[in-house]
């Protein structure tokens, strides 16, 4: 018994050692927003290192890096056949991007770092070495086992640049009045500009004289207790991410300063027509010149103070950032993290040895993190843009997703990815209500086997969507603009009042299917001119062939009579016309690029480009029905997107590509992916999506196929 226990402990130690050496996730804090794990071992088994070493891809990489010392992958010194992990962490002050790479050969690694960092000084610290950029925002930190490539941005509010933060207590109106007063006192113009400026400060009852700072590095009102603030700000482990509410951008700088000039200029540029007004103009010119002299003097000193303040702020910020990074590196190399990402259950559940890559993401917080990073990089210019990005990046399917896990698998027959979401309760309820419907199976009998290029099948409850969406949009929008919560809630209520979800739900239930059947050449007429021998022009009708898509669109309705009435309205307005039991857009008023044919039969609206097909449908003709494989997919999923990429691309005319890209296009036509399939289904309120891209027949290793495909493209590009 004791022996068995001992063996068990040894096995556990060994496995924990191997976990420690390869699983960097224990070094990532539980406040991470994104963790991406790349399974190097899996990938290198599919695309061997020696293949990479002789590939075009690696050749291009070497060329880009402009180095002679790296000839093989192993020259980097990394242990590529291990897991590599990227993490994005955000706390109140910093956004960290950390990329963990295991080291195999320390000498090679250090020589590579020395070359690429252009011999920047390597600092030896307690337990690790590091090389950093000047601003301390980018670092490479390593010990003998692994390296961390880190870069980050300060996202706190204390040292963010703000115009008025770096300005002093300047009041244009008060100061202008004071300057006028000084000029009135000194009509003889005996005072120097410095003395005048000092007098202005006296009138304004300032506790200092601006002129004092003209020659001194010291600046007014600079507190010496800022160092204390830095100490307080370095928080080793921040559990809850808080992103500062950054106030809207300040009004454009220097408006006030400019305006004083403008005001004066307007005054002096008034047209003069008499001697009196000429004298008056002279007086104003003189007054303006004297005021400008004082203003310019004071503005110059103020600018100097402002720049100095900014420098100090920047220095303090850099110092703080350095401290935060040092603290973080210390926890990576010398300490155990109290709460690592491994304590988050959804993360541990996401681990998958078979997956080649796993992306774990805290969605809503990730958006906040990106917001902070963008604001930090672009400053206030990003403030307005972030709303657009935030709202546009949300689709129905990502509303309220707390966590999403995306996995990538390079399988034998193709590349597979899966994405599962972990919704909050509100979204779970909405998802269940919207995505619990089944596709209308009657659609499937109108499809002829698998004679199509692709299709999109979608089923959801439109009634539930209309009922749930306003509230979901409200909650999403208010995430970005909490100040408009009330307005958005009222808007959602109004939408609910005006949108009769039942009526809309009856008109279009939410079951729809689009089938791209074929691309066919059609003869199209056009007008051209011919000229007689005296070049008199007459119109002639000519024809040309065009490739046009043939498709069938089907939609379930429970309110045939309403749709029939809409059709009649279309006929009345000559937008469509009736041909027996079906309708067509073949009218003079049609603005459509091709003719469409409609019919409503047995609660299904049919729209097609093929007149024979619509005639067959209304006559109750028979079709083979879709193949079993696709039927299964459509029945089991809320959304299915399928297309035969090879077939689709084969229809694209070579002329649609630039001449210089024609070779790449032909290569893609010949070697590109075959079938592409994407599905989405509801799993207890969470959406599960899956995608699969089939590699061409005969390929038995999708990773190798992509690798070879890329190499082929590079080779063509180099010709």
């Amino acid at each position, binding site marked *: 018994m004791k022996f068995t226990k001992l063996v068990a402990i040894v096995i556990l130690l060994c496995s924990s050692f191997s976990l420690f050496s390869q699983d960097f996730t224990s070094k990532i804090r539980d406040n991470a927003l994104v963790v991406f794990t790349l399974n190097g071992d899996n990938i290198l088994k599919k695309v061997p290192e020696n293949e990479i070493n002789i590939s075009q891809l690696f050749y291009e990489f070497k060329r880009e890096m402009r180095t002679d010392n790296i000839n093989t992958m192993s020259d980097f010194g990394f242990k590529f056949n291990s897991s590599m992990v990227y993490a994005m962490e955000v706390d109140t002050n910093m956004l960290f991007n950390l990329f963990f790479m295991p080291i195999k050969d320390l000498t090679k690694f250090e020589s590579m770092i020395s070359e690429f960092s252009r011999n920047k000084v390597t600092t030896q610290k307690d337990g690790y070495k590091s090389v950093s950029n000047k601003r301390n925002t980018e670092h490479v930190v390593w010990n003998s086992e692994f390296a961390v490539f880190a870069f980050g941005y300060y996202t706190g509010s204390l040292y963010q640049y703000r115009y008025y933060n770096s300005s002093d207590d300047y009041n244009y109106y008060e100061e202008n009045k004071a300057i006028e007063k000084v000029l009135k006192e000194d009509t003889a113009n005996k005072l120097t500009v410095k003395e005048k400026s000092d007098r202005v400060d006296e009138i304004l009852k300032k506790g200092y004289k601006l002129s004092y700072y003209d020659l001194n590095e010291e600046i007014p009102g600079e507190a010496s207790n800022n160092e204390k603030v830095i100490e307080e700000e370095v928080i080793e482990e921040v559990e809850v991410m808080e992103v500062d509410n950054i106030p809207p951008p300040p009004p454009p700088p220097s408006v006030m300063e400019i305006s004083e000039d403008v005001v004066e200029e307007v005054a002096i540029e008034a047209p003069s027509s008499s001697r009196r007004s000429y004298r008056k103009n002279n007086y104003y010119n003189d007054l303006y010149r004297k005021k400008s002299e004082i203003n310019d003097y004071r503005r110059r000193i103020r600018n100097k103070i402002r720049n100095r303040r900014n420098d100090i702020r920047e220095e303090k910020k850099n110092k703080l950032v350095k401290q935060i990074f040092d603290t973080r590196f210390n926890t990576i190399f010398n300490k155990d993290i109290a709460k690592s990402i491994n304590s988050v259950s959804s993360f541990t559940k996401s681990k998958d040895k078979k997956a080649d890559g796993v992306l774990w993401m805290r969605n809503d917080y990730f958006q906040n993190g990106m917001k902070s990073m963008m604001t930090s990089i672009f400053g206030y210019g990003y403030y307005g843009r972030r709303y657009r990005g935030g709202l546009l990046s949300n689709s129905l399917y990502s509303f309220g997703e707390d966590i999403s896990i995306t996995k990538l698998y390079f399988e034998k027959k193709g590349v597979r990815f899966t994405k599962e979401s972990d919704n909050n309760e509100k979204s779970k309820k909405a998802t269940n209500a919207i995505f619990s419907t089944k596709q209308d199976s009657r659609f499937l009998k109108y499809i002829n086997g698998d004679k199509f290029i692709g299709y999109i099948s979608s089923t959801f409850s439109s009634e539930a969507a209309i009922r749930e969406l306003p509230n979901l949009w409200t909650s999403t929008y208010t995430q970005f603009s909490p100040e408009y919560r009330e307005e958005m809630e009222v808007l959602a209520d109004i939408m609910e009042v005006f949108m009769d979800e039942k009526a809309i739900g009856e008109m279009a239930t939410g079951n729809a299917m689009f089938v791209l059947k074929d691309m066919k050449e059609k003869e199209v007429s056009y007008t051209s001119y011919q000229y007689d021998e*005296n070049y008199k022009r007459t119109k002639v009708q000519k024809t040309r062939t065009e490739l046009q898509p043939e498709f069938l669109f089907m939609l379930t309705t429970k309110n045939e009579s309403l749709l029939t009435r809409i059709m009649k309205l279309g006929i009345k307005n000559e937008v469509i016309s009736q041909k027996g039991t079906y309708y067509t857009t073949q009218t003079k008023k049609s603005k459509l690029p*091709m003719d469409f044919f409609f019919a409503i039969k047995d609660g299904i609206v049919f729209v097609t480009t093929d007149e024979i097909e619509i005639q067959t449908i209304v006559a109750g003709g028979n079709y083979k029905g879709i193949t079993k494989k696709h039927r299964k997919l459509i029945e089991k999923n809320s959304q299915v997107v399928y297309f035969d990429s090879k077939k689709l691309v084969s229809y694209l005319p070579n002329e649609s590509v630039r001449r210089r890209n024609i070779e790449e296009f032909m290569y893609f036509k010949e070697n590109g992916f075959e079938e592409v399939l994407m599905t989405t289904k509801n799993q207890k309120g969470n959406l599960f999506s899956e995608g699969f891209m089939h590699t061409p027949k005969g390929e038995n290793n999708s990773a190798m196929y992509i690798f070879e495909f890329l190499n082929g493209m590079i080779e063509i590009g180099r010709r």
Partner: protein
Amino acid sequence: MKTKSIYPLILIFVVSLFSSCFELVEEVTLNNDGSGEFEFTANLSQSKTKLKSIMLMDKINGHKVPSQADVTKEIVAICTLAKKTKGISKVSRSIDFENFIFSFKCQFDSVEALNSVVKNFRLSKKVTNKNHDKQFTYDKKKKILYRNFDAALKQEYTRLNAEDKKVFKGATYVSVYRFQKEVKATSNSKTKTSPNNKATMLKVNVLDVINKKSSLKNTIKLK
């Protein structure tokens, strides 16, 4: 999975299937006294399927797609501008969105009046480049009509993206000039003269004009 985003992709795919082509026709009938008639026709009929598809979109290649109302408004504005120009009369237009053929016609007292229309249009669009102001010059004494053309289109063309450049592929420009007197000589080697010697025709590829392989520039000397 965002199936919504598939629909615009399908539309773009459909659009890419149809090649584009257009022809521009410029016709001038010049009387001995320098007055005459001008007609300009843009015939995009060959690309009508593509244009109808594009008109269903909001944007293409990053450009806003104008609506029928926008296009009409622009043509009407040109006509209004022409009507207000001294020496221009009987202004008419033709707008056909079924075949995408648009034309503008007017009578002029002198070719200078035609130039004024071009200049006024430029000013209305706040374009500062004056290079295109003088399209025609007619020397009554010497009986010479000059078709001026010195546009540096290549530079503008190079700035376009690849998709926009495709629009000019296969496009042609036809200039037809009719006179009461017979034509003695023309400077542009690509110009054809009618058997009765009273009309000339110059047909060039727009791309050749852009690349300076051809030009619209011509000097037509009358007998």
